[in-house]
């Protein structure tokens, strides 16, 4: 599967990348875009469907008012103009994930257009121009069966679940992004990360990339340095984590650079990202797709009044970048400490943990070390871990109260992640509380002194550095369930 690649440095020495990003956001409305079926993830297959989303003859769609409001709020928060009048259109194609053989979308009349987003990457500011944000519906979900690898190439047949068909989607499309140079992959990642934060702040989507509620198609092309004419691009799909966006674009830049540097041509095509670290060709786009768009005759135009748009503007939350500055000041973190939080996608988690009562430094420590390590091991985002900010705050409260020490707290987290209940329940079920009864501690200290007479002698002579060995012995004796500080105090008391 591996194709020839140029090193990223060599690619950047010869070419300028141009990006184009298409981000699909599934809205978290209670119902679908055009019918009253529940819009939820993870139901039994084909249990949230009706004649409208199944495309049965004679059924008629009706637009979800909340979806329109969300679309307008998204548009406004991206600095877009909101159309005074716009229509839905039919995008015609045949694929078994579409019940109607067309997708209800918007074509030349998007609800929001001409926006801009400013991003800071490594101290450099990039302006991302938003061409449009339009409304459409999601398709059903295919499972490929019968093959060896589960990939479509060797599938014998496919199984379709239409629960997702008709889910409201907003597609946000950038204009070509130039001038990012070697930072192109980072800029793309920062942009999608910004959109994720923004959608979460607006509370319009769950933005769970691993569940597909935020999806990115990453277009990239290369121009020889000094040229201004865009090269042929590829569009990489199936990029479902922030990490993958950066990796997939880096790969595509290196692959295209090797082709061009070797005198070859880039095929304009769709490519698929594989988590193993490469892309493979999908549909060729040499024959321009002909979707035969036309205005949807079953839906009347959407004409949001200016009063409504202004009402919605008044509901916009604090912009994520403004919020960051505020939180950094409130929490008192240095630039780099705070940047680590943002880069790890832990800002909202830490904010919620602090809101649940934990000190900011402790919240940061848990999310960026222990929990980040576990998320990394499991290959998931922090938000996908089976622990809530409130539970993390509860763990820290147990530490602060002296019920558990840091080491035991990690075991409490193990228990919570394993579904054993709330932190306090894990402590009692696993018997993790530290021994706070001085009698038991003193007995353990005395046993340690007796077993290590030479160490005890040194401490009596005032060589406190030797105390570590006794503390270690006590901790071992009590299987780690003691507060090391208190053990030290008791050793000094007994030998002082």
């Amino acid at each position, binding site marked *: 599967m591996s194709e020839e690649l140029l090193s990223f440095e060599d690619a950047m020495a010869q070419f300028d990348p141009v990006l184009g990003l298409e981000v699909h956001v599934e809205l978290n*409305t*209670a*119902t679908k875009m055009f*019918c*009253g*079926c*529940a819009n939820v993830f993870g139901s*039994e*297959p*084909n*249990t*949230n*469907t*009706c*004649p409208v989303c*199944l495309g049965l003859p004679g059924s008629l769609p*009706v*637009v*979800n*008012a*909340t*979806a*329109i409001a969300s679309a307008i709020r998204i548009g406004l928060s991206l600095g877009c103009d909101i159309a005074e*009048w716009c*229509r839905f259109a039919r995008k*015609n194609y*045949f*694929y*078994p*994930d579409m019940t109607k053989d067309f997708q209800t979308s918007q074509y030349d009349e998007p609800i929001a257009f001409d926006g801009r987003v400013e991003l800071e990457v490594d101290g450099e500011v990039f302006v991302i121009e938003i061409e449009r944000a339009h409304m459409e519906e999601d398709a059903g979900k*295919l*499972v*490929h*069966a*019968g093959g060896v690898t589960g990939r*479509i190439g060797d*599938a*014998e*047949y*496919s*199984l*379709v*679940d*239409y629960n997702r068909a008709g889910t409201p989607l907003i597609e946000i499309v950038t204009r070509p992004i130039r001038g990012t140079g070697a930072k192109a992959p980072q800029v793309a990642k920062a942009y999608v990360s910004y959109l994720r934060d923004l959608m979460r702040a607006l509370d319009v989507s769950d933005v769970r990339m691993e569940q597909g509620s935020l999806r990115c198609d990453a277009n990239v092309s290369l121009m020889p340095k000094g040229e201004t004419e865009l090269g042929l691009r590829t569009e990489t799909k199936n990029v479902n984590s922030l990490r993958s966006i950066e990796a997939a674009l880096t790969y595509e830049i290196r692959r295209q650079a090797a082709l061009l540097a070797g005198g070859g041509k880039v095929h304009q095509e*769709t490519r*698929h990202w594989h988590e193993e670290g490469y892309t493979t060709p*999908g*549909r060729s786009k040499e024959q321009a797709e*002909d979707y*035969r768009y*036309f*205005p*949807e*005759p079953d*839906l*009347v*135009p*959407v*004409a*949001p009044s200016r009063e409504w748009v202004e009402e919605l503007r008044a509901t916009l939350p604090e912009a994520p970048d403004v919020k960051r500055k505020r939180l950094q000041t409130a929490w008192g973190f240095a630039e780099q400490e705070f940047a680590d939080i943002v880069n790890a996608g832990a800002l909202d988690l830490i904010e919620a943990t602090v809101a649940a009562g934990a000190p900011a430094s402790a919240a940061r420590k848990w999310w960026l070390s222990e929990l980040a390590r576990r998320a990394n091991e499991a290959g998931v985002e922090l938000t996908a871990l089976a622990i809530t900010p409130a539970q993390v705050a509860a763990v820290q409260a147990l530490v602060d109260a002296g019920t558990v020490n840091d080491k035991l707290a990690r075991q409490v987290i193990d228990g919570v992640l394993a579904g054993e209940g709330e932190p306090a329940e894990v402590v009692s079920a696993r018997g993790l509380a530290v021994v706070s009864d001085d009698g038991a501690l003193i007995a353990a200290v005395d046993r340690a002194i007796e077993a290590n007479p030479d160490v005890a002698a040194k401490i009596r002579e005032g060589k406190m550095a030797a105390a570590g060995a006794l503390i270690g012995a006590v901790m071992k004796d009590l299987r780690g369930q003691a507060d090391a500080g208190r053990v030290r105090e008791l050793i000094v008391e007994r030998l002082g």
Partner: protein
Amino acid sequence: MALTAAEVARLGELARVRLTESETELLAPQLDVILAAVARVTEVATPDVPPTSHAIPLTNVFRDDVVRPSLPREDVLAGAPAVEDGRFRVPRILGEEA
């Protein structure tokens, strides 16, 4: 603006209708007649006539975001040619990736 046989073949492809050569030759002039009839609309649609896509002069027909019962799954799947694991079973899709 006569349609060529190649254009008719392409339309057939887009509509997933398999056409033989004699059928494309038969259909090309027939489709021409239809296109010519529709083209007459442009003669009356002067710049002062706004384009319209809907017969009723309404905008903003919305519904509240309230869940209504979906169909029972057995009804949903009743019309499926084949079913497996509560899903519609469809033939393997060639040449494209989902």
